[in-house]
């Protein structure tokens, strides 16, 4: 054997070693990607030839690595080498015949407890083993990647994490092969520790075999005496015959029971090794436990949701202001001059402007800052695996609404924007669940409605009234959920989900997910927003809006006790809910024929609260309606829209009367 220790030195090493190829056997459980690894080692892109003269039915190919020839032998997949099944027998015979320099044990990184038996047995038989932890990407994805260093230390052999189909770890594996073939890389390889009584008998048999080998009865496949003794005691007939122990009376009836003892000891060791290599108590595991235990999980959930919205409002608001300013400064003048150039400055031109100028900025000002940002945050949180914990904790509450835990995700999302929320209801089980979740999502105040509540209610009337507004909306959502669950027929959803521990989100995947969803929003919603804007443009430019006031009068002034202009702004706020507040000032000024600086000058506190609540509940905005139509059907969308208007009128009317004495 060579004296070279490190494979990299082989490049400059002397030629003689290159004559005989390093024989490498690939052993492994079925379905762990052994063949993929074989292909990765000997693949078409590599210099490969089929080797002749192989009698055993095992696929074999020659390749080169760092100027050294390697012969890779693919053994049949098996869980062990001791059974009498065809594959195990064949794998064992191939090993004995080929006398490999190195055996690569390909194991399933996602299931060490089952797959370490084979490498242990190979070590017991005295082979120089390298463990290839295949499927390591899958193990990482599930957060169950074993501790490679611990496993390598405990087994005393090199352990290489591989992802065979993508060639990950293959070069490292080949380096390890050369290193081990050259006699390096191995630690103290103990194999399976046996109970003392068994070990004693193994030694007796080994001594006998050693004595016989002097007489020319050599164990096959260069097995050392102890390995041969183990093979004999585990019932390997080939080896027993070769060492002349078949019928000389040395083996007794009691020895037959030892096979089971040895196998049991190996299973025990396998489990112990797998447990030792488990990345237990990793920070991810501890966090995971904290997020699912009720006492710590609920505060964490509240903090995560608060964090999501804080980020959304800060980033969204910033982007929104930048975009609107940029649009007003550079693009709007261009669009305006282009449109007035084509359609003239008359009503037609103005109507078109409502659509292409107002409509597009409406899409952009909500779409990019809030929806895109929210999609990004949501995709990020989803990819950490946290959402499962939230679903787990909230399942019971969601049940009251006829939903299950997973519905909490769309409902959280709705607080940012109803559009992604409604798209997210797709992940729910049946139509009933989707409908309930979609209705509840439209009732959750999104960032635009929050802007009105914060701007008008908290800003003008006081924060305690803003809290009151949110409380009223929460009660409305809860009652709506209970009511829908009661009256919509059909089966309730059931919760079964696999829980993965935390993982680090991959930015590229998060970005891709964000973009896919955002594109869907732009395609669906933009045309409807533009058309809706133009329709309102018609109402406004033709002066019909004031006539609408006559129709709405009894409802707005009589029932909701709001000023007429406030009712009119609600009509326009269907485009963008936060528009309500801006328009309120504009319309009030138009009606008053002069500047109005503050809503407080023409609305009382109770009117402001009523206004914000009605704005939050009545009919979702056009972007939401557009998505809703596609997700739950246009008929249901019509029902939902009509239902929310009625709900808004009922709640608004009650609130107006309850608050009257306080204003």
């Amino acid at each position, binding site marked *: 054997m060579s004296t070279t220790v490190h494979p990299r030195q082989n490049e400059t090493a002397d030629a003689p070693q290159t004559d005989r190829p390093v024989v490498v056997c690939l052993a492994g459980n079925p379905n762990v990607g052994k063949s993929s690894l074989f292909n990765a080692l000997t693949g078409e892109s590599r210099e490969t030839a089929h080797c002749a003269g192989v009698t055993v039915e095992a696929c074999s190919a020659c390749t080169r690595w760092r100027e050294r020839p390697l012969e890779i032998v693919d053994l049949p997949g098996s869980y062990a080498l001791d059974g009498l099944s065809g594959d195990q027998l064949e794998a064992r015979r191939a090993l004995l015949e080929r006398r490999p320099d190195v055996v690569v044990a390909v194991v399933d990184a996602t299931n060490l407890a089952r797959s370490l038996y084979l490498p242990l047995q190979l070590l017991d038989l005295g082979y120089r083993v390298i463990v290839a932890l295949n499927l390591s990407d899958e193990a990482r994805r599930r957060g169950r990647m074993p501790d490679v260093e611990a496993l390598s230390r405990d087994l005393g052999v090199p352990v290489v994490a591989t992802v065979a189909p993508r060639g990950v770890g293959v070069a490292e594996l080949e380096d390890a092969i050369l290193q081990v073939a050259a006699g390096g890389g191995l630690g103290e390889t103990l194999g399976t520790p046996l109970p003392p009584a068994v070990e004693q008998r193994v030694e007796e048999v080994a001594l006998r075999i050693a004595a016989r080998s002097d007489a020319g009865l050599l164990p096959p496949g260069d097995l050392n005496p102890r390995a041969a003794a183990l093979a004999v005691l585990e019932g390997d007939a080939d080896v027993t015959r070769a060492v002349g122990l078949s019928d000389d009376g040395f083996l007794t009836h009691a020895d037959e029971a030892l096979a089971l003892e040895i196998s049991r000891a190996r299973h025990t060791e396998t489990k112990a090794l797998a447990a030792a290599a488990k990345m237990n108590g990793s920070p991810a595991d501890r966090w995971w436990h904290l997020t699912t*235990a009720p006492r710590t999980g*609920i505060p964490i959930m509240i903090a995560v949701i608060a964090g999501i919205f804080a980020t959304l409002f800060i980033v969204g608001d910033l982007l929104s202001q930048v975009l609107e300013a940029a649009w007003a400064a550079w693009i709007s003048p261009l669009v305006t001059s282009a449109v007035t150039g084509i359609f003239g400055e008359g009503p037609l031109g103005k109507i078109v402007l409502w659509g292409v100028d107002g409509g597009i900025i409406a899409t952009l000002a909500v779409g990019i800052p809030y929806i895109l940002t929210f999609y990004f945050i949501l995709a990020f949180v989803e990819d950490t695996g946290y959402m499962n914990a939230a*679903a*787990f904790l909230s399942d019971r509450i969601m049940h009251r609404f006829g939903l299950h*835990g997973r519905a909490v995700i769309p409902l959280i999302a709705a607080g940012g924007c109803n559009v992604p929320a409604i798209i997210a209801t797709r992940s729910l089980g049946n139509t009933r669940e989707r409908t309930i979740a979609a209705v509840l999502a439209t009732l959750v105040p999104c960032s635009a409605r929050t802007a009105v509540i914060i701007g008008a209610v908290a800003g003008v009337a006081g924060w305690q009234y803003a809290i009151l507004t949110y409380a009223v909306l929460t009660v409305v959502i809860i009652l709506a959920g209970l009511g829908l669950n009661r009256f919509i027929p059909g089966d309730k959803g*059931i919760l*079964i989900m696999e829980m993965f521990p935390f993982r680090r989100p991959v930015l590229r995947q998060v970005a891709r997910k964000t973009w896919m969803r955002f594109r869907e929003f732009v395609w669906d919603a933009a045309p409807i927003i533009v058309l809706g804007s133009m329709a309102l443009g018609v109402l406004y430019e033709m002066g019909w809006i004031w006539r609408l006031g006559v129709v709405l009068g009894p409802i707005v002034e009589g029932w909701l006790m709001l000023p007429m202009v406030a009712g009119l702004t609600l009509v326009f706020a269907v485009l963008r809910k936060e528009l309500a507040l801006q328009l309120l000032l504009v319309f009030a000024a138009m009606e008053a024929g002069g500047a109005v600086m503050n809503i407080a000058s023409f609305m009382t506190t109770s009117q402001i609260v009523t206004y914000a609540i009605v704005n939050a509940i009545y009919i979702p905005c056009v972007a939401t309606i557009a998505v809703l139509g596609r997700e739950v059907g246009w008929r249901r969308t019509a029902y939902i829209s009509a239902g929310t208007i009625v709900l808004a009128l009922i709640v608004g009317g009650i609130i107006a009367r309850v608050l009257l004495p306080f204003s």
Partner: protein
Amino acid sequence: MTVRTENAEEYLEAIFKLQHSGGTVTVKRLAAELGLTSPSVSEMVHRLRAAGLVERRGRRGRGRGIRLTEAGLAEGAALVRRHRLSERFLVDYLDMPWDVVHEEACKLEHALSPEVEARLAEQLGNPLTCPHGHAIPGEDGSLPDERLQALTDLRPGDAAVIGCIAEEEGDLLRYLASLGLLPDTPIAVESVAPFNGPLLVRVGDAQYALGREVTDRIMVRH
């Protein structure tokens, strides 16, 4: 002996199962089990009583218990035995998936003669449980007195082995099988969500959140 209809046999089977799950068998429980209304159940119970297969126990009134007589018990046990043997046959010999065999066995159980039943049991190697883990009554109608507990009733930190799974819902069975939640699988409860929420369970290396509507259907033993 009166002529027994399939309908009456369904009743005997249902009463047998309820009687073994513990508690008093009432018309109300029986109606829920069979998916029928209480009046029609009362009517049939009356007829079975006339045939000497069931008897009523306890005070008069709504909560009065229904019990199988010795003859009824033997009949019920034989039906359940044929049902569960048929399921085993469908799964073991015909390789049918475990989520569809309950329906099929409901039809087969009425068609098996005692002789076919005996041969079937022998061919199958006298199995002790159906594919869903429910015990098969012996030829003498005896059931092992094994105390099973609903998975729902375990507390965090408890470990158990899945005993049997309610077989009526095919979709659920299919899903559970795909996750490896099968009879004789060790299972441990890691955490329970608040307000009687779902259970976080560990099976092998995997963790699952299972809602109450699922854990109520999984019976475990220690």
